[in-house]
């Protein structure tokens, strides 16, 4: 979906460049909250991974292909601000090294493929995670829907930019219809790749999924009193005992608390306090 030079006129390209610059500036500020020395290398990895997967065009209907845009994936894995930066870095490298995406169109491309996809995907993802029952499957499902929506949204934003500053005069209804139509299909590929990747990381390192933090933190909270008790009841090594052991012996005392760390999929059971914790986590 990389816009080359010569699609959009100079003033609108500059305007889009200003929007893109503002978006990147805001993201640079916001990313500070999302990154520390532990997660910064992982964010770099997400950028490299998106670059790699963007090379993998998959066929869609009628002699067309599509590829990942990656905004949804990056936003869910490393946070929205870092996500905008990830995709922007990818677009910059593609424009400078691989002659993919025009240089004067870089602002259009960042606005379209980095900012639009991240904003649409992350807002939708947060809403869905809030509505759906807590758990990893919900996070993966929300990632799927968010990614699927982000691609036609980017196509729609391209259409708007074209409407304002297109150098050719193709009827807008045609542009909008065919752009959004084909990108709904491409969005399904985006959704599949995003859900697969988010699901895989959730399975291996759920603590590294930014979008799943609200789900993991409350478990930490419940774990502490649980493990303290585990130690007190004679388990000398609470940390090792926690995954399997505590459920049975401690159950009479506080069943909900003890089952939580052992079975994160059951996080839904801990909702009352979990919900209370969430706003704090969002702020933190």
């Amino acid at each position: 979906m990389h816009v080359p030079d010569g699609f959009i006129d100079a003033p609108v390209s500059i305007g889009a460049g200003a929007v893109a610059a503002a978006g990147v500036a805001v993201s640079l500020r916001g990313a500070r909250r999302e990154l520390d020395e532990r997660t910064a290398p992982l964010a770099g990895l997400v950028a490299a991974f998106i670059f790699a997967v963007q090379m993998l065009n998959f066929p869609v209907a009628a002699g067309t292909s599509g590829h990942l845009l990656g905004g949804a994936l990056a936003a869910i894995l490393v946070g929205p601000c870092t996500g905008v930066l990830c995709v922007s870095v990818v677009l910059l490298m593609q424009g400078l090294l691989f002659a993919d995406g025009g240089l004067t169109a870089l602002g259009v491309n960042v606005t379209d493929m980095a900012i639009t996809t991240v904003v649409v995907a992350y807002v939708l993802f947060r809403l869905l995670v809030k509505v759906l029952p807590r758990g990893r499957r919900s996070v993966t499902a929300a990632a799927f829907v968010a990614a699927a929506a982000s691609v036609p949204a980017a196509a729609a934003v391209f259409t708007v930019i074209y409407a304002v500053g297109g150098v050719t005069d193709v009827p807008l209804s045609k542009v909008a219809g065919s752009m959004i139509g084909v990108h709904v299909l491409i969005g399904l590929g985006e959704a599949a790749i995003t859900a697969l990747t988010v699901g895989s990381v959730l399975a291996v390192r759920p603590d590294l999924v930014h979008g799943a933090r609200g789900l993991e933190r409350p478990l930490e909270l419940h774990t502490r009193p649980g493990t303290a008790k585990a130690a007190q009841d004679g388990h000398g090594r609470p940390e090792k005992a926690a995954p399997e052991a505590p459920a049975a012996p401690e159950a009479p005392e506080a069943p909900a608390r003890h089952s939580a760390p052992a079975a994160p999929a059951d996080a839904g059971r801990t909702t009352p306090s979990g919900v209370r914790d969430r706003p704090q986590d969002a702020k933190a």
Partner: protein
Amino acid sequence: MTARSATQRPTTARPTTARPMTAVRRSLHDNRVFWIAGVILALFLAGFFSYYASSRPDGLEKVAKDQGIDRKAEDHRLSDSPLAEYQTKNVDNPRLSGGLAGVIGVGATLAVGTGVFWVVRRRPAPALDRSAPAPDRSAHIADKSAPDSSAPDSSAADRSAADKSDPSPDRSR
């Protein structure tokens, strides 16, 4: 729970005092394993698997061609750069040419991306914020449960709480 855990805190804290280092080290180690696996996967996808990607025009290219949006499209200003169109110049084998371009692209994106994120990241001092919410809250619990606890005692509880908060994501795997 309150009174008992307060009296038991020394025994709770003792086995965990040795843990901060192991927990931190293990989490860094885990991250490194994850990172290396991710880089290998990215290199594989861009360096090898990209050869099998569809070469049909992508959604925008196709629409632009069909509708005439690209009538005034210009050649890319860097269209004769050594890696233009994801092919390495002067490498004739298409598999090698594309694969090399992909590997270089992954490396360059990784380097630039990591550089940006490393500069932007929270510095060590504010980085304490990351673990702050959890120990803070547990400090509240500790205070409420043991208002009579002495200062060194509660700091030990803090430490043990911090120990536990770190590995817990791993535990929930």
